[in-house]
């Protein structure tokens, strides 16, 4: 076995440039897989954490058809959700709190500047505040959060504070939202996604007034007992359907949301892994080609080895070891390159988009990629090795 590897190594070193070119395909393929899987794992991890924060005991209801994609309070069509729906939901048993939210764009004025951004209205009673804080991971960086008695005050996202206007917006400053003056009472910490960071949050009642609406974009239901979530969700659905005479709303439990997010992620990952697989096939064909060349060039050697007593199995294993070796070296370099790319992606992500993706390169991924690249090498080398093994010794010895 040690000899096999030694001989294989020597044979490869003999043709350094060719070996390297052969490796290129498999390096790229493995690198792509490693990078994509690790970035994907990182995303998955980030999503899971987001849901951990959200908690698994929530139900979210938004207007719009249940078949419309995604979860958005801005969906069109269907009857809006309003206080009547809140009443209906509150009557369903097993519920802790029901929190409505409004999200809409509005014009914001500060000094002479006018800018459009999102305004969110949230209930400011203590029990709601607690829930929303938990869910969104809102943290006040400066100033304070809402109190129940607040009316025309605003908590601004980090982006609004930092760079939405020419001048930084600070606590105690005045801004005009749809021509109504609000006092900034708090600035949030950077969250990482642009929508949250550029949102201005105000008390629900104030938002109804300035946005001129009584329709809610979301209703968030906090269920008392996590085990009851799907039961409560079914019941709410049933009641709302009865009242609306139609299913013109979208209802999702945190569990369902999580599953949706996870399945979207895994589809994306599968597509990329598919692309990587194609480059591996190309790499494999490259290995096959190189090995066929090697077999031809070493025809005479094969004849000699047979003459001095090598069995077909032995010849086969010599060439297979060589191609497995090519695969493995490609795998090692591919893993290195892929890790580099993956770190680069997470670095770039945190620098330019402020989305923190911690890429994860698990030992399973490393070992799997290594085994996989070896298998690609062996499969690609199988036919050339078989040809070598089956050579007629007399003809091989007389090969010029």
């Amino acid at each position, binding site marked *: 076995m040690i*000899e096999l590897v030694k*001989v294989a190594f*020597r*044979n490869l070193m*003999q043709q350094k440039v060719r070996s390297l070119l052969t490796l290129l395909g498999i390096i790229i393929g493995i690198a792509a897989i490693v990078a994509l899987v690790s970035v994907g794992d990182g995303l998955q991890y980030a999503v899971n954490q987001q849901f951990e924060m959200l908690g698994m005991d929530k139900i979210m209801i938004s207007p719009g058809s249940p078949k419309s994609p995604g979860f958005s309070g801005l969906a069109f069509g269907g009857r809006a959700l309003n206080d009547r729906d809140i009443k209906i939901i509150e009557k369903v048993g097993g519920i802790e709190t029901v929190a409505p939210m409004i999200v809409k764009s509005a014009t914001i004025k500060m000094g002479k500047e006018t800018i459009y951004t999102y305004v969110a209205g949230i209930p400011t009673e203590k029990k709601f505040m607690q829930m929303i804080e938990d869910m969104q991971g809102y943290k006040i960086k400066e100033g304070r959060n809402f109190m129940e008695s607040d009316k025309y005050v605003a908590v601004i996202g980090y982006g609004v504070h930092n760079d939405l206007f020419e001048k930084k917006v600070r606590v105690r400053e005045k801004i005009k939202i749809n021509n109504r003056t609000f006092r900034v009472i708090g600035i949030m910490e950077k969250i990482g996604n642009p929508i949250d960071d550029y949102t201005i949050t105000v008390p629900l009642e104030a938002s109804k007034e300035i946005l001129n609406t009584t329709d809610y974009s979301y209703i968030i239901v906090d269920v008392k007992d996590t085990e009851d979530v799907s039961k409560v969700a079914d019941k709410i659905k049933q009641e709302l359907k009865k009242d609306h005479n139609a299913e013109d709303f979208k209802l999702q439990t945190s569990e369902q949301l999580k599953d949706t997010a996870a399945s979207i992620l895994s589809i994306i990952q599968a597509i990329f892994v598919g692309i990587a697989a194609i480059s591996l096939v190309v790499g494999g064909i490259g290995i096959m080609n190189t090995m066929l060349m090697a077999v031809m060039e070493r025809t*005479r*050697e094969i*004849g*000699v*080895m*047979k*003459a*001095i*007593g*090598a*069995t*077909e*199995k*032995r010849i086969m294993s010599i060439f297979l070891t060589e191609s497995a070796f090519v695969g493995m070296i490609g795998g090692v370099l591919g893993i290195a390159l892929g890790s580099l790319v993956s770190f680069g992606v997470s670095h770039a992500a945190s620098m330019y988009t402020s989305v923190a993706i911690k890429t994860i390169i698990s030992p399973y991924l490393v070992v799997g990629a290594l085994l996989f690249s070896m298998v690609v090498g062996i499969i690609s080398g199988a036919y050339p090795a078989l040809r070598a093994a089956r050579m*007629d*010794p*007399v003809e091989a*010895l007389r090969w010029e």
Partner: protein
Amino acid sequence: MRSIIELKNVSKIYQLGKVEVKALNNVSFSIGSSDLISIMGPSGSGKSTLLDIIGLLTKPTLGQVFVDHVPTTEMDNDQMAEIRRKKIGFIFQTFNLIPRLTALENVMLPMWFAGVPDEEKKKRATHLLEIVGLGPRINHRPTEMSGGERQRVAIARALANNPEVILADEPTGNLDSKAGEQVIDILLKLHKNEKRAVVIVTHDPSLARKAKKRIKIKDGKIVKRG
């Protein structure tokens, strides 16, 4: 004298398109233990083909080959490889060493195929290279050696698994006379001191004369035995 390899009415026919080439035509011939045999004949007469068949590199088209009185007709490739590994040592005109391996590794190669343990492999290969006078050069590659030295490595390799028969196809064909003499010296000593059967294909009449059994071959037929 015990017969190791015996050919009975052997013919080897190559089909070249519609033309049949009778490389060997009804040849019967036997190699006993401690035989020294020379084979001579013009180019294309079938000398190498005869060695191929004696060395079990290929099967005859007609006739039979016996190894230790056992017919080889029904043997598969692996069984033939095993006999080559254990009983036969090949020496070629063009040396045919593996260029990427050192002298020592080249000599160890047949032992690797035979599954000899590491320690012993190295010891024996070193010893064999000393016998052929290459003790100080065991770690050199073939490209760093002269033709004569390469052929001596090849002899050491042929002896690796202690074969009963050594088949040498024009072993001095690519060597100058001095290097050739050295090689022949070693082969003759092997025959004399170790009682191994040695078959040498040669164009050199003076070498041929040293053999007790002399064979002349022409157009695939043995035309003279002596």
